[in-house]
Structures are given as C-alpha cells and as structure tokens.
C-alpha cells in the first residue's frame, strides 16, 4: 500500500510539483502564464494555509505551500479546509463549491473561464497524490 502524504505538508508539495511537472507539459497547459493560490481557512490545527501554483508559458513554475499571508496571484480561491478536502477526495465538485458560495474566487472571471480547463487539469493531477487529510 502506497504511503500517504500529509495534505499541504512540504512532502506533499514536493510530490505535487513532481507530478505536475511530469504530466503537464506547456502544450497541455496552452502555453498559459498565470498563477493561482488556494487559501485554506480553519485547518485542523486552527491555522490558515495556502497552496500556490504558477505557470509561465505553460511550464509549471513555483509550487509552494505555507502558513499565513498567501503570495499575490492572478486568481485566489479561498474557503474552509474541509471544503478543499472534500474536493480532493472527490466528494464535492469545484463548480458546486463555487456555486454554493463555499469557495470564494477572486480574479478576472472572464480570464478564469478561459483558464478553467487548465485548473481542472491541475486538480486532476493533484488528486492522484495519495493524501492523508
């Protein structure tokens, strides 16, 4: 049985970077330049955390996790840790989470629409990481 990595830990981040870089080439990422930060409120230890991904001309750039103030990004999605965890376990869709207001998106919605398929690709790769929530 594959060892599970703790969600948003440095090891989980390293695995995310490895899988994203390996599976998403610039063509699959439409040569896009953008950045997205997910902001997790009410983590199990009471802290706030973030997960940041940037993409330059379609190549995966920075992938980072951390506590406290998140870095600036073109798009920001914020919500409770539990909501993100449910999404990662496949129990809740991103669209349903946004439409119900459980997640809050900041950024240019018109651009977000154009990039939504890329975000889906990112999420699909991240969902393959054996994760312990």
């Amino acid at each position: 049985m594959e060892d599970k990595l703790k969600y948003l830990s440095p090891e989980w981040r390293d695995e995310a970077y490895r899988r994203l870089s390996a599976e998403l080439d610039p063509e699959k990422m439409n040569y896009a330049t953008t950045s997205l930060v997910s902001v997790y409120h009410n983590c199990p230890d009471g802290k706030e955390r973030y997960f940041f991904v940037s993409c330059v001309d379609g190549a995966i750039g920075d992938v980072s996790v951390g506590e406290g103030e998140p870095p600036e990004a073109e798009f920001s999605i914020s919500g409770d840790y539990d909501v993100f965890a449910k999404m990662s376990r496949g129990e809740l869709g991103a669209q349903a989470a946004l439409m119900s207001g459980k997640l809050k998106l900041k950024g240019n919605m018109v651009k977000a629409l154009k990039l939504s398929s890329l975000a889906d690709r990112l999420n699909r790769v991240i969902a393959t990481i054996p994760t312990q929530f």
Partner: protein
Amino acid sequence: MGKKTCCTENDPFFIDYPGRIKSIQEAMASEGFDVYLGSRLRTISWTTDAFCPWRSYIVIPREGLPTLFTFVIDASRVADDTWLPEDNVRGYAPLGGQDQITQISDFIKDELKIRKGRLAYETGLSNYTPEGNLSQYEYEMFTAALPGLEFVNAHIIVDRLSLIKDEGTINRFREASRYTDVGHEAVREALVNGGWKGKTETEIAGIAECAMRKAGSEWAWSFTAGNEIASGYRTGYAGGACTPATRRELQPGDSLMVDLHAMYRLGLGDYAYNYLIAPVTDRMRWHARNYIDVVQMCIDNYREGITPLGLASMVMEMAEERGFTDYVVPGFEHGIGMMGDEWRIGLNTGPIKYWTDPNHVYQAGEMLICAVQYACPEEKIGFRYECPILIHENCCELMAKFPLDVEEID
C-alpha cells in the same frame, strides 16, 4: 476588433471615449468624488461604446481607465466591442466571490484602494424600463460592503456631459437614419400597387427589418417592440405611442403606421411614416392634413432657444383654430442619445422631477426625436411622426431623409 481599429480621429464615427472619461473625472474632482459607480444603460453606452444588454456597471476612478462589469456570459464579446482594454472588462457570475456586489466592492477596496471617501452613484425615477438606476437592494448591499464610502446620487454628471452631441455621435445617428430610410423604401415597394393585400403588421415589420439589416442595422433598438406597425383601429389608440406589430391583416380603408428603428454603433434611427389604404374619404384626408401641418410646424420651429412648452403652445393654438385639439398629444418630442438614453428632455431641472423640463431651452448640438402622435379613436384613424433631429442655431436637421407624407395606396 474592427470597431477598435476603425475608431481613429479620421473616422467620421470617431468618438473620443478617453476624453469623455476625462471629463467625468474632472467633474468628479470638482465635486469631491473618489469613484463613480455608473449603472444606467445610458451611462454604460456613453462611456464604453459597447452594447450591454445585461445588467452592467462602470467603475470610474478619479484617475486612469474605468472598469466595466457585466454578466460573465457576455463579457468576452463586450471586451471585444469596447474601446477599453480586455483587463478592464470583468464578468460577474453567481459564484462565491464573483457576484456583482462582492466583485465590484472588492475591486473598489482592493484594486482601486478606495476605502474612504465619496462614491457617486445613479438613482432616480424613469418611465423607461431599462433605465438602470441602482436598485434598493443593490444600494443596500453596496453600502454595507463599502462602509467607509458616502454614497451620493450624481447622475447629473453624465447627463450634463452627454447633452450636447459630438460629431461622431451625430454621424452615427445619421447612419442609423439612413437605415430607416432603406427600411421605408422596402416597405413602400412591398405595399404599393396592391402589394398590401394579405400582408400583416408583423410581415411589414419583417420586410423593413430585413432591408435595414442588409444595409447594416444592428438592431431595431426600441423597447417599444422594435419596428412598430399599426393598422386600422390600432392607429387610433388615444396616446397611441406604442404599437408592437400584430398578426392583423391590412384591410381596405385602413390607415397604416410604419415606425422603424435601426441602430449603428449605439446611434439610433427612428422614423415613422404613414399610409392610407383606398378607399380614402375626405374626412381621412382632413385628419392627414392636420397631422402633416402639425409635423411641419414642429420641424419649422425647432431651433436653438425654443422650449418644449413654447412649441407645444404654438402647435396647440393652430390645432384649436382648426378644431382638432382632441386628436393631438400635446407634446412633440422625446429625448434621445446613445442607446439607453431615451425619453426625457433636458437635465431634470423641471417642475416634475425626472420628466421633460417644459421650459428647457434647446441649444445647438442637442438631439431629440421629433415625435407627433395624432389619433382619433372614434374614427379608428391615427398617424405618427418620429424623426431624430439635430438642433442648430436657426433650424433643425432631420436625420432621416424619407419624406413627410401620408401616402395613399390602392
């Protein structure tokens, strides 16, 4: 993209949109506003050069470019049509953080960094359904989301600046009026020599629309149902200023009112022409003569310095002398501007707020729709004249070139 690239100063339809924004910002500065939140359709058209049928808002800071917010499903198209850069067109959506209230208030707070000060917004009263004043709910939500800002009704800023029309706007109206001329030619051709037989009002509307679209019209813009056609008793409604085409088939002895609308880049065409279908009685011709004389008197007298009340008094005096006051609606114009700017004349300075100021003194460069409604319900007959006009110092220019007449056809 075509619109953006053709919008140079050498283009006859050029409008200096950055200059318009600058003039708003100068007014904001002199009146102590930090940000302008425009929501009226007339404001959106006047500032963006884009057709925005969905609820839209324009946020104008004291300096720099404005940002337009519209429904996300239409935002890409609007971004393509407007002169504003793509980044300055945002789409709102029913998603967390993306509804219009959250998005706009976050934009003002986080991107414009305005958390305190005075916000200009637009409210008031209108008989025109799509006016777009901020709703009570929007006002409550915005004021709750922006607690540090004082909200002040300031629509007068745009109303004042948009009163006198620039050359590009005037030329767009001329072009849209050319389309209504084309539409009327097509309708006339279809009706004469017995062509009217078996035709319905909706069919006539379609004949006109087809011709105007071929000529380049984007939309029969009127909220009163596009191309308005009335026949027979329907031309004689008291007041009678809204006649959506029906499936009524034309009959011998009918009067027929053909009121066409066209649009060229938010400039509006609006011309109404009338027919009498044989057999035509002397009494019908008497009504027609009265109507034509009223229109002619209006056209002859619209110029700088005249007022709506002054003109109405003059016309109604003639009607009184000739015994047809009962049949004339005693108002001979409505306001007009780029799409969404319709109805009232002047600057809301009249005795009844948000209605035409009867004592508004016309200035050269103003535009209006000369509108005459003549109706005799008991005789089931009526006529309508509408034509965009430009006020000059000593006369007015008729934008449409189709003749003034009540044409008899058999």
